[in-house]
Each structure stands twice: as structure tokens, then as C-alpha cells.
């Protein structure tokens, strides 16, 4: 809201530097945007919050200053001479759309002489960025900028049959506005029409063919109340925003219509002459009355934490325009109709606080101490990030929505189509991601374009899995991508599961899995019962090529929600055995297709509780000696008893049973 300092002085006498007043305004709710000098006058731009429609005119701003500095506020009192002829003789108004326009008033002035406005008025309008037009249009704009009530002047000669109809527009009805553009309306918009055509788009803009021109002689002055929803919708839909729609969207003073109308007529009579017809056409004569609000004395301190003297409370509210009936413990307050935001006790306490001054509220009040505790999820996430970083992965964050491409079809966690938003988050990105992998591949591509080498990235974020008609499932995931051997990601996941769950975690089933985006036969997934916990693999060459990725792409994803279910809170110590451990290296020749997990399980079963650890060492292939389709697995067993020193024949017996089990179950042969 632009305010002319010179104009403001009509209502309050502020013998203070503008900077000082601007600071006070900022501290009481009107943020200072800027101050500029226009034609030698300071013009101040103030940010008005959407609840303060009363401050969308100079009088409202002046009132704030008057309250803050406790000085007098002078509001013009339009006193008009009217002719003996009644407005009802020349005009009727029918309101068929009270849902959008609860009140419509009209006055008529006959015999005006259109011409330019005097310089004092033109200058004031120029100062606040309104282009002067002619004395009548300028008068309507001037009064809007004075009190916040939008007004419109019609050339009465253009109103057919001397009748105004406030109605809903007809679907696809055409309307030409004074901006010389044509708009197609719909049935939720309100038009001010005569019997034949719309003359104005109610609350938004006047029409081209009923606007006041040099040849206009008789005027209809409209002062009406349009409801915020209707105006906002219209302005949005037509992308037509005006100072008028801006004010109606914020709810104007329903009881201020008549004052604005009279004030406007007074100006027109002064500037353009003519004669005001007697009376006012008003489709809804009843003034709006808000109920009284009770303000209890103890509540002020209870909310603010400081005492505000009771008479000071009353004084502030009175000065703001309220009717106050103050008792010792309670006040009955009637808010003025231009403050429709004041309906409850809390609203009044806010008024008292902002005028009394928030700087009076201390910042060293006592705050009782209470305990808070870290969530298991935060503990888990600490481990997850530490392990990923320890393996050289950089954390990244990516937008939750992705575009449609070959990548958005990567959906290892469900096959339902992704949820989409009407408005894309970023250009083309309107699909809520069902996996973190597409974003990570895009991130990899970005780095490739920057020639960044050896990129290892991880992200932890929600994915959004559609559930038919029900609320989508938001599942918290870890996603990894790297250029290295996929075993690195697998190792990261194994380490995470082991650390977060500890040795007591539930058993997982390992399975080869086929995704249409990953290399066949080399993607592994882990399941807890039927629920997939994680998968790791390589992006298929076909997808990599079509997304123009160079190099190898190892990818994997882990469901952190499921991981959390079994997270242990604290590691529990297992007593150390005081007896020495024996290490035994075993070198097996096995089939190429044998899984380590299967071999490990066999060894574990055969060796029993004396086997404390089964450590994979390495794999080696010697097809000349072992034949095709064979590999050698070197592993180390740690054997130890908690109750005695193991004798070597005990150890040999254990190893013997391990070898036998591996041979019978997997056809493994031991290399000497």
C-alpha cells in the first residue's frame, strides 16, 4: 500500500520525521517496504497483512498513527446538498446475486462537466502510482485510496431502461473491460448489467462501453459490497487483478458504503459540478452489527506474560475505534465495522499487545526444565549416515517429484502408477517418486555433465507408494548410487543392518530378483517375511544407455521404516571368553553358483555354538585345476569355548564335520 505523506496530513498532524513514524508502524504491524520521493513528497510503501483491509486506505494508516502517538484523527464529513428530484425516479436496482454481492448502493448526479482534475488531486494520485484520467474517475479512485472502499462511476445514459441488475454472468458471456480486453465469463462471476448486457464485472473492473467519457452528463455512482471468495475466484480465473478486487478480496467495511458514496459525490460536485439527486438506492438497508466481545482482565497477562494497566487497555481499544464499556475485571467491547478481524478476546489482546509494544515483553521469563529424549529413528539415522559416509558416499537431497521419462518407470517397491500433482513442482516434474533411484540417476547425470569423477551418492527420504483409493504409503528409504562394484553398496547395507539390528535381528531371506531396469541375474533382494527390506544391483545397460550414462551404475535401496522396526536400542555386551580362540583357514572348491549365504548357513549349523565367527576371506578361480564352473572360497573359522580351553582334537572334529557338511550339501571339496 503506497501512502503519500502529504495526503496523510489531511487526517493526522505528524510533526515527526517520516523514518521515525515508519519504524513505529513496522513495530505495530505495518511493515516498511520502501520510501521514495515523488514530485517532492515522501511516498511510503507499507506491507498490509491480509487481515487488515482497513489499512488499504490513507485514513486507516492515519488511524494507526493517531493511536500510536495519541493524537487526533480528522475524518472528512461529507455534507451534501441534494436536488428535490429523487434518485428512485431515474434508476432502479435489482439484486439477483446476494451470495456474491450482499449489498449494492447507488447515487445519481446529473449535469456534470467532464474535464481534467485539479493539480492537487492529480498530484496525489500520481504520487501513489494512479494515472489521473478525468475529474469523475479520479474522484472514485481518490476516495478508494482514502478509505479503502472501491467505487465505480457509470455513464447513466448507457444504462438501458434505467435499470441496474446485479446478476450472475451467463456461461461464456463476453465482456469488454475498460482495459480494452475481452473476457469470457462464467456463471460464478457477478456482473453489473442492464437489461441487455453486462456493464461491469462486479468488484473487479468496469466495462468499456459504460465508462465515463468526455460526453458524459449524468452519473451513477456505485458503492457496493462484494464477497471475498467470489472476487478472488473471478480475479484468479481471468487473471485480472485490480485495486478494487484486491480490496474486496480482503473484506471491506460493509457499513462504510454510504460514507464512501457521499464522499465521492461531494468530490464530483466540487470538481465537475452537477446536481445530486435526493436519496440512496440500497438493496440491503440493514447495517451489519457484530456482537460484543468480552475481554477479561486476567487474560491479558495470562497470554502476554506481562501486566498492561487496565485503563491503558481500554484506551488503546477506544482509540482503535472500539466502543468500550469497562468494568473492574471485564470489558465489553464492540469492534468497529471496519475492523472485521476483531471478533474474539484473543484478537483484542493482540491489539493491546501490538499498540502497547512487543518490546515490553521480556525475553528472560523462566522456562521450566523438562526432559526430552532422542528418538530411536534419530539413533538409527546417525548410524546409517555414519556408515554411508564412512564408505565414501556423499549425502544429497533431491526434489520429491520427478518428470516422466524412462527413469520414472523405475519402481521396485510397487507397480501402481505414481501419484501426480496438478501443478508440477519443477518443469515437467509432477510424479511423486516411488523410488529414490531415478533422482540419484539424474544426480549422477548432472555430475557426469560437470566431469565430476567417481561419484558416490546417497539420499534418505520418503518415497510415495500409491495404495489404490487409500492414502498413499510414505516409506522412508535409503538410496545409493556409485560407479564402483555393487558389492560396495551391498556391504554398506549389510553393515547397516548388522549395526542397527545387532546379532539378535530377525532372519532375512536372500533372493535373486528381476527388475526391468536392472541387469538380469545380478540383482539381489532381502526379505523379512514377505516384505522387501533392501535390494542391490546394477542398472541395466539398456536403461543406462537410453539415459546417456557413462560407466557402470551400481544402485541399491533400503527400507528404513522396516529397518527401524527391529532396531535395538543399545548394544548389550556378551561376556568375553577367557579361553584362547583357534583360527582355522578352509579353502573350498565349490560350484560357481553357490551363494556365500548358503555356504555360511551350512557351516554355522555344522559347527554349532563353538564356532564364534565365519569370515569370508576371498574368492579365487583356477579353471585349469578345478575345472570350469568352479570357484575357490577361502574362509576362516574362529573356534572358541566359553568354559574351557579347546583341545586340538575337539577343533579338528568340528572342522571335520564342517567339511563333511559342506561336501554333502554343496559338493564342496577341501583344497589341501
Amino acid at each position: 500500500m503506497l501512502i503519500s505523506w502529504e495526503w496523510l496530513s489531511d487526517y493526522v498532524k505528524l510533526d515527526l520525521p517520516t523514518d521515525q513514524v515508519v519504524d513505529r508502524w513496522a513495530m505495530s504491524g505495518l511493515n516498511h517496504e520502501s520510501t521514495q520521493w515523488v514530485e517532492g513528497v515522501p511516498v511510503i510503501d507499507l506491507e498490509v497483512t491480509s487481515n487488515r483491509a482497513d489499512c488499504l486506505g490513507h485514513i486507516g494508516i492515519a488511524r494507526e498513527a493517531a493511536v500510536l502517538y495519541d493524537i487526533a484523527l480528522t475524518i472528512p464529513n461529507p455534507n451534501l446538498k441534494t436536488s428535490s428530484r429523487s434518485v428512485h425516479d431515474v434508476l432502479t436496482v435489482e439484486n439477483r446475486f446476494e451470495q456474491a454481492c450482499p449489498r449494492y448502493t447507488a447515487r445519481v448526479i446529473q449535469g456534470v462537466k467532464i474535464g481534467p482534475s485539479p493539480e492537487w488531486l492529480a498530484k496525489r494520485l500520481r504520487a501513489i502510482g494512479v494515472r489521473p484520467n478525468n475529474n469523475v474517475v479520479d474522484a472514485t479512485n481518490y476516495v478508494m485510496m482514502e478509505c479503502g472502499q472501491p467505487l465505480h462511476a457509470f455513464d447513466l445514459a448507457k444504462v438501458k431502461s434505467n435499470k441496474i441488475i446485479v446478476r450472475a454472468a451467463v456461461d461464456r458471456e463476453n465482456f469488454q473491460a475498460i482495459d480494452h480486453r475481452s473476457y469470457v465469463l462464467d456463471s460464478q462471476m457477478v456482473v453489473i448489467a442492464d437489461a441487455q448486457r453486462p456493464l461491469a464485472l462486479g468488484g473487479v473492473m468496469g466495462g468499456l462501453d459504460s465508462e465515463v467519457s468526455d460526453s458524459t452528463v449524468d452519473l451513477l455512482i456505485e458503492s457496493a459490497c462484494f464477497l471475498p471468495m467470489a472476487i478472488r475466484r473471478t480475479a484468479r480465473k481471468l487473471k485480472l487483478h485490480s485495486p478494487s478486487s484486491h480490496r474486496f478480496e480482503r473484506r471491506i467495511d460493509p457499513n462504510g458504503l454510504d460514507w464512501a458514496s457521499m464522499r465521492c459525490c461531494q468530490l464530483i460536485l466540487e470538481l465537475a459540478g452537477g446536481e445530486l439527486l435526493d436519496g440512496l438506492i440500497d438493496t440491503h438497508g440493514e447495517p451489519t452489527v457484530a456482537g460484543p466481545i468480552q475481554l477479561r482482565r486476567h487474560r491479558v497477562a495470562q497470554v502476554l506474560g506481562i501486566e498492561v494497566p487496565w485503563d491503558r487497555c481500554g484506551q488503546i481499544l477506544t482509540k482503535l475505534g472500539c466502543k468500550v464499556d469497562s468494568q473492574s475485571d471485564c470489558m465489553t467491547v464492540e469492534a468497529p465495522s471496519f475492523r472485521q478481524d476483531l471478533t474474539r478476546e484473543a484478537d483484542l489482546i493482540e491489539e493491546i499487545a501490538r499498540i502497547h509494544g512487543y518490546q515490553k515483553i521480556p525475553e528472560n521469563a523462566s522456562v521450566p526444565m523438562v526432559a526430552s529424549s532422542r528418538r530411536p529413528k534419530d539413533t538409527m539415522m546417525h548410524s546409517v549416515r555414519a556408515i554411508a559416509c564412512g564408505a565414501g558416499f556423499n549425502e544429497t537431497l533431491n526434489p520429491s517429484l520427478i518428470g516422466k521419462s524412462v527413469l520414472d518407470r523405475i519402481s521396485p517397491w510397487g507397480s501402481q502408477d505414481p501419484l501426480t500433482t496438478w501443478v508440477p513442482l519443477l518443469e515437467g516434474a509432477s510424479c511423486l517418486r516411488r523410488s529414490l533411484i531415478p533422482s540419484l540417476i539424474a544426480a549422477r547425470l548432472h555430475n557426469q555433465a560437470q566431469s565430476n569423477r567417481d561419484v558416490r551418492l546417497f539420499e534418505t527420504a520418503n518415497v510415495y507408494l500409491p495404495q489404490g483409493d487409500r492414502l498413499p504409503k510414505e516409506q522412508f528409504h535409503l538410496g545409493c548410487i556409485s560407479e564402483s562394484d555393487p558389492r560396495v553398496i551391498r556391504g554398506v547395507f549389510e553393515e547397516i543392518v548388522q549395526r542397527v539390528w545387532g546379532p539378535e535381528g530377525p532372519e532375512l531371506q536372500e533372493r535373486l530378483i528381476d527388475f526391468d531396469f536392472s541387469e538380469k541375474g545380478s540383482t539381489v533382494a532381502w526379505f523379512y517375511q514377505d516384505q522387501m527390506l533392501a535390494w542391490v544391483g546394477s542398472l541395466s545397460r539398456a536403461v543406462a544407455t537410453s539415459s546417456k550414462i557413462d560407466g557402470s551404475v551400481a544402485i541399491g535401496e533400503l527400507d528404513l521404516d522396516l529397518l527401524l522396526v527391529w532396531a535395538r536400542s543399545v548394544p548389550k555386551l556378551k561376556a568375553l571368553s577367557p579361553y584362547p580362540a583357534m583360527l582355522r583357514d578352509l579353502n573350498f572348491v565349490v560350484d560357481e553358483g553357490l551363494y556365500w549365504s548358503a555356504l555360511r548357513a551350512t557351516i554355522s549349523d555344522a559347527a554349532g555354538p563353538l564356532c564364534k565367527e565365519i569370515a569370508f576371506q576371498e574368492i579365487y578361480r583356477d579353471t585349469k585345476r578345478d575345472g570350469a564352473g568352479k570357484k575357490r572360497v577361502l574362509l576362516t573359522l574362529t573356534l572358541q569355548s566359553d568354559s574351557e580351553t579347546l583341545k586340538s582334537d575337539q577343533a579338528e572334529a568340528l572342522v571335520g564335520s564342517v567339511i563333511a557338511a559342506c561336501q554333502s550339501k554343496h559338493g564342496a571339496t577341501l583344497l589341501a
Partner: protein
Amino acid sequence: MALDQFLTTLDGLLEDAHSSLERVGTAEALEEFRVKYTGAKSGALKSVQKMLGSIDVKDKPAAGKRFNQVRDRIEELIAQAALRLGGESAPKSSGPLLDPTLPGLRPRIGTVHPITQTLEHLKEIMGRLGFNVTEGPEIEDQWHNFVALNIPEDHPARDPLDNFYLATAKSLSPPSTGSGEAPAERLLRSQTSTVQIRVMEKEALPLRIISLGRVYRPDAPDATHFPMFHQMEGLWVDRNVTMAQLKSVLRLFATSYLGGDVNIRFRPSFFPFTEPSVEVDYWWNGQWIEFGGAGMVDPNVFQAVGIDPEAWSGFAFGLGVERLCMRRFGITDIRDLYRSDVRFLRQFAT
């Protein structure tokens, strides 16, 4: 034996060792030298050590001390010579030797995203102030994102163009303002205040919580705007919570975060879910810096979740995490946070 004589013998031995070691050019010669001087049975040192027995008692400490020094020195000289000569016969070292000409083998350690670092920092500080961490869904219904937060249907914040509403099979066009459609449409939450509602609906009072997470608002991306960002929201509901306590908690928070004594300023503002509502600034490095929005929980919000506003009061505050993070790390373009460029990410090694 006199002390003087003993010391002279020792010095002579050390001198001999020095000069003959210089002539030692092979590992074999070094081994010969080692046996000659430090051999356990008849090494030169051993012979000198035997003389210690005939030293006067009062001189023994001095003699012994000097003997040890000479012995240590000779052993050190042998070790140095062994290093110089290398080869198999050098005494075994404890592992690979450091090549002083090469740089260290540095582990490759990843980095945590600056936004995550900021979120963790915020959780830590608020945890010390007694606030527990909570979270809620990012896809919300109208009730939690608007209605319960006292944002009525005609409020501009609910405009379809200002929110990311989900497209559904049933509605083929975005919901329109004031169309009177049932408020069943789901959307990406536009604020973390939604979590306040969810927590107040089911948790027992009193409450001290924060919620952190992603929020979504259609803003054209530029250096300071991104349509997805993070918020932290705080809520304290108890019997007699006041605005003075709000100001005090925020000052404690800012002082903790910035590490110095910080002042707080309230400017009146307007949010549907708080009354009174304020913008919060903090005074830091000689200027007022915008912190976020705050206020006392609006009675309508309490009523929406079935809490008696006469019996309970509370405050809430919210702030943008990106702004704090960018200021802390010197980031000037918010879009850099979401580009995944490793040259950017690797800089936040802490």
C-alpha cells in the same frame, strides 16, 4: 676401578663404534659389528659392564647412568645403519616403512548434506530445551493442512494455484476456489504445522515438540526460492504458557544456535493459526535478521483438536531451515542445495 678411568673407557668405546660403523658397508659386516659390540657373551659392552662391579659404591649411580647412555646410543647407531643398508639381514621392522616422500593414504569419507546438518543441529538444541522430535506425513488432507489450522475455505492460502494438490482419477481438473467441492482433495503439505494438529489430536498434554521436514509451495525457483524446502515448527502447550516464554525460548534457541548472546524482537504479523501473531527477528552482528513466524496458538486451533483454550495455552513458531543453513554455510543460491553436485556436497565435510 676409578670412575674417571671407567668413563674414559666408555667414551673410547663409543668413539670406536662410531668410526668403525662408518666403514661398515654390508649387512654381513654390520652383523659382525653387532656381535663385536653388543654380543651377549663377549661383546665389548658386556666386558665394560663387568667392570662396573669394581667401581666405588658412591660412584656407581653415575657410572651406571653413563653406561646405559652409551649402550642405547650404540644400539641406535646399529639400527640406523641397518636402515641405511636395508636388505634381508636388517632387523625386522614392525610393518611397512613410511615412505616420507609420499602423501598420506587418506580414507575416503563422505559428507552429510548441509540441510541435514542444520536439521540435526536444530534437533539437538531444541532437545536441550525439552522439545521432542515428531514427524507427520507429507501428503496431507484439507483438515490437517487448513481447516484445523483455522484457514477457512475462502482463505487465499487454499488456492489451487498456491498448493500442490494431487491429481486423482475422479477429478479431471484441479479443484477450484469456492467451487464448494468436498474438502477431500489431498495435497503436499504447505507447512509443518500439520504435525501440530496430528500430535495434539492424539498425545496427552502438556506437550513440547518440534517437527521438521519437507514442505511444498509453488514458487518459481530463483536464488532464494525453491518449491520444496524444509521447515522447523515448534509447539509448547501447557497450563500457563505466555508470550514472554515464547520470546525467552526463542532467545535461548538463537543464543545456542549462534553461540553468543542474542536479542529477540517481535513484530506484529498475521497467521490464521496463531493469535497474537508475530514475525521474529534476532539481533546479530549489528543487524536485525528475520528468523521466522510465531504466536500464541489460536483458540480455534485448540477447539479443532478438542483442547479447552480456557484451560490450556501454548505457543507455536516456525522457521525456514534453508535460510538458516544458507546463512551459516555461506550458500547464496538455494538451488545449489538440490543439484547433487559433488563439488558442492564435498565442501560440507565436518
